[in-house]
């Protein structure tokens, strides 16, 4: 028997086993490669696309998510691959023992089974690479067909090669371990069921008898198969970290960021201003989701200013619950360095580079303002005329440590006391008090008014406002911000739902892994299941035992994965997360669905096995 003919014949004779391992490896490589290629377009592509459209604060949250998910996808692929290699060769342990017992030299046995491993791994990885690339092309084409614009980029051959090489190596390394381990032990031990599948130790615990024999058998087999169980728990836990970060993180980040935007823009808020001013304000807000170019615009034109009489009339309308008068302008601003004192050395270090640029300047009345910003630092105070609050994008682009720095606008300096997340002008904005802005610009009136309408009496109030506004001037307009707010929230929805779509494929790979584990469990307990059936157990008892094992593995890995995923999301990925009862229910719903789908899929081999005749099982 030559070294090449034995492995080929052995693989061909085990048609079912061989094809299952090849299919598992193929799907694992394919799904990981697909995730990376497709994620590059869907995820990282979006990340680049939104760089100039999301405010800096949101971009940071989003990029962190994408990077983390990309990393986890690769880790999941690697863990799954190593598990598959291990499972495949664990199923050969008894054969290796038998060959040793028959007198076959160790190096020859190692050669036979390594050749088998090489053939199967190469075929699996090769087919996986082809399938993954094809799936990427097909999915891109399909989604473009549905109207999503995803670029059909040329294949990144380096990435394809990297995935192939890495996964091939991982499967070889982890597959070689059981072969090496078995070739090292004495033949009697190798053929013993106590050694196969890691059964070298006596079950070290007693299960309380009330759990029943089914559960007892399931649990003891899990502990007996310690090595494989640890690996599958690790593998599934990684997958569930990925799923949790994507799903729970996605839901939390979606709701949190939407809440930031909603509070900053304001719900049930209408804008009253000159028609041209209204259009400009809408464009400034829409920069967040539509990336429209800013027009050259003179904000402080006399005709844009709101007459005091209109303000007085608005104050008399009972359906208005808040009036926020603002003066919007545009100015050239300059960063002023701040100083940091080091108490240990006593030295003072300058912070800042005296950068200059254009910014939208908004004067507000701190006591009347309708927006609630997600804020780092403090809010403006009416009594402090020399304070400024800047948008997150401006803070990132033009300041080093904004909260200890000063900004100069209209030749007057303002201490930066807060950094806010604001979609207007995509975060490129400076807020000062209305009085201060009026002083420095010489413009005595506001040019926009924002009013919050009582939602219970909305239409009547809006009609009253419109009547008052048109009585003052036909050029003034009442504009509802809900529409543009809806667009902004819809855009955030789109990008977060895209992220949540990615882990579906990892879940599929995880299900395959669990199926592999269930097959290993069945192979190991085959004889025992046959005996149970012969002694009077029904086929469903076998399914119960296997599903019990599958459930324990799934729940323990799920608990660990979800716990880590939530911690990562809340502590690292989303600052000041918004978690409501609905968020928890939504996340729980998604994760339970994922769990149930994985569990049901994993039962397939057990159900198929349970239908076999007893003698075939015991053979």
């Amino acid at each position, binding site marked *: 028997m030559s070294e090449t003919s034995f492995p080929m014949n052995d693989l061909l004779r085990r048609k079912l086993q061989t094809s299952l391992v090849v299919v598992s490896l193929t799907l694992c490589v394919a799904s990981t490669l697909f995730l990376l290629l497709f994620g590059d377009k869907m995820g990282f592509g979006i990340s680049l696309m939104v760089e100039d459209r999301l405010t800096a604060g949101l971009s940071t949250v989003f990029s962190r998510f994408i990077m983390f998910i990309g990393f986890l996808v690769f880790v999941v692929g690697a863990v799954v691959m190593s598990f598959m290699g291990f499972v495949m060769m664990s199923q050969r342990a008894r054969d290796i023992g038998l060959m040793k017992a028959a007198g076959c030299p160790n190096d020859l046995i190692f050669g036979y089974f390594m050749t088998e491993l090489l053939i199967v791994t190469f075929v699996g990885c090769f087919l996986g690479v082809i399938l993954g690339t094809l799936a990427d092309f097909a999915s891109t084409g399909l989604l473009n067909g549905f109207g999503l614009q995803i670029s059909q980029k040329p294949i990144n051959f380096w990435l394809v090669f990297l995935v192939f090489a890495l996964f091939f190596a991982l499967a070889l390394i982890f597959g070689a371990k059981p072969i090496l381990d078995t070739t090292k032990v004495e033949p009697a031990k190798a053929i013993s069921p106590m050694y196969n599948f890691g059964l070298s130790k006596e*079950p070290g615990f007693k299960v309380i008898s009330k759990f029943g024999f089914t559960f007892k058998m399931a649990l003891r087999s899990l502990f007996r198969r310690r090595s494989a169980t640890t690996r599958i728990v690790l593998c599934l836990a990684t997958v569930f970290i990925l799923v949790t970060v994507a799903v729970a993180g996605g839901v939390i980040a979606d709701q949190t960021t939407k809440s930031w935007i909603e509070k900053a823009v304001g719900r049930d808020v209408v804008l009253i201003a000159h028609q041209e001013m209204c259009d400009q304000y809408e464009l400034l807000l829409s920069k967040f989701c539509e990336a429209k170019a800013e027009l050259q615009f003179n904000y402080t034109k006399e005709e844009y200013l709101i007459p005091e009489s209109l303000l007085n009339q608005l104050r008399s309308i009972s359906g208005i619950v808040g009036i926020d008068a603002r003066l919007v302008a545009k100015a050239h601003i300059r960063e002023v360095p701040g100083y940091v004192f080091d108490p240990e050395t006593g030295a003072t270090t300058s912070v800042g580079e005296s950068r200059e640029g254009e910014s939208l300047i908004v004067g507000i009345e701190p006591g009347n303002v309708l927006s609630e910003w997600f804020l780092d630092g403090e809010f403006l105070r009416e009594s402090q005329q020399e304070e400024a609050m800047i948008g997150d994008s401006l803070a990132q682009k033009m300041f080093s440590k904004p909260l200890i720095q000063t900004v100069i606008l209209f030749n007057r300096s303002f201490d930066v006391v807060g950094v806010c997340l604001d979609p207007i002008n995509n975060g490129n904005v400076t807020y000062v008090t209305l009085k201060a802005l009026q002083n420095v610009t010489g413009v005595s009136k506001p040019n926009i008014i924002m009013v919050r309408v009582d939602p219970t009496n909305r239409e009547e109030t809006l009609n009253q406002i419109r009547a008052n506004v048109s009585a003052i001037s036909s050029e003034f307009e009442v504009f509802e911000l809900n529409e543009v707010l809806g667009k902004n929230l819809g855009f955030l929805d789109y990008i977060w739902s895209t992220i949540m779509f990615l882990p579906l494929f990892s879940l599929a790979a995880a299900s395959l892994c669990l199926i592999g584990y269930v097959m290993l469990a069945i192979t190991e307990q085959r004889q025992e299941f046959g005996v149970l059936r*012969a*002694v009077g*157990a029904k086929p469903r008892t076998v399914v119960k035992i296997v599903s019990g094992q599958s459930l324990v593995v799934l729940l323990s890995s799920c608990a660990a994965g979800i716990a880590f995923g939530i911690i990562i999301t809340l502590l690292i990925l989303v600052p000041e997360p918004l978690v409501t009862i609905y968020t928890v229910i939504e996340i729980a719903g998604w994760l339970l669905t994922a769990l149930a789908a994985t569990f049901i899929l994993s039962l397939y081999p057990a159900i198929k096995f349970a239908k076999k005749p007893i003698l075939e099982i015991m053979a």
Partner: protein
Amino acid sequence: MKTGKDVVLASGLCKTFEIGDVKVEALKDVNLGVARGEFTVISGPSGSGKTTLLNIIGGIDKPTSGKIVVFGKDLGVRDEDFLANFRCQNVGFVFQSYNLVSTLSVAENVAFPMEWARKPENHIKEWVEELLKVVGLQHRADHFPFQLSGGEQQRVAFARALANDPPLLLVDEPTGNLDSKTSIKIVEILQKLKGDGKTVIVATHDERIIQLADQKLYLEDGELVSLNE
């Protein structure tokens, strides 16, 4: 066929296995009757079809043709759920290779058929102790199968087969893998079962067991011959 043989009635039993293109006839037109309390021994060379015949009588396997009626039930036409219940309630099986469940202790191996028969917990506990006493392994109750010798495992297999006090016991080569000293204990257990009036069918070459038989049958190349006649 003899009258009064109401426990097992087999008529025209044939069993053919197909291995690729090759057909192997394991049983050829086997006719058999076993009466209540009868101790039947089936002997014959290795590969003659003894295990196949026991499997068919026990409802583990189905004949290719012919009829097998055990306790009045035609096992050839019943579904798997019925057969599982039937085996649990009516048949005790002792396999040649012991086939204990390695994840269960000795006591648990004996107890689990009773769990499936939904016997009360107290009864299970008492009966397990009783059975382990019968086979002389009460001191091994908490051990696991891999901690036992072959003879001890075989005795646990006997205890398990008797767990639900089945009216029919099928025993396949009980001393085939054991040394003569250990075999004596197995023969003693079979003697006791015969004394208790159990219906027992044993496939064996062991002369000591053949001598216990009320009915001696010989199987060769799938054909059954009665040695009594």
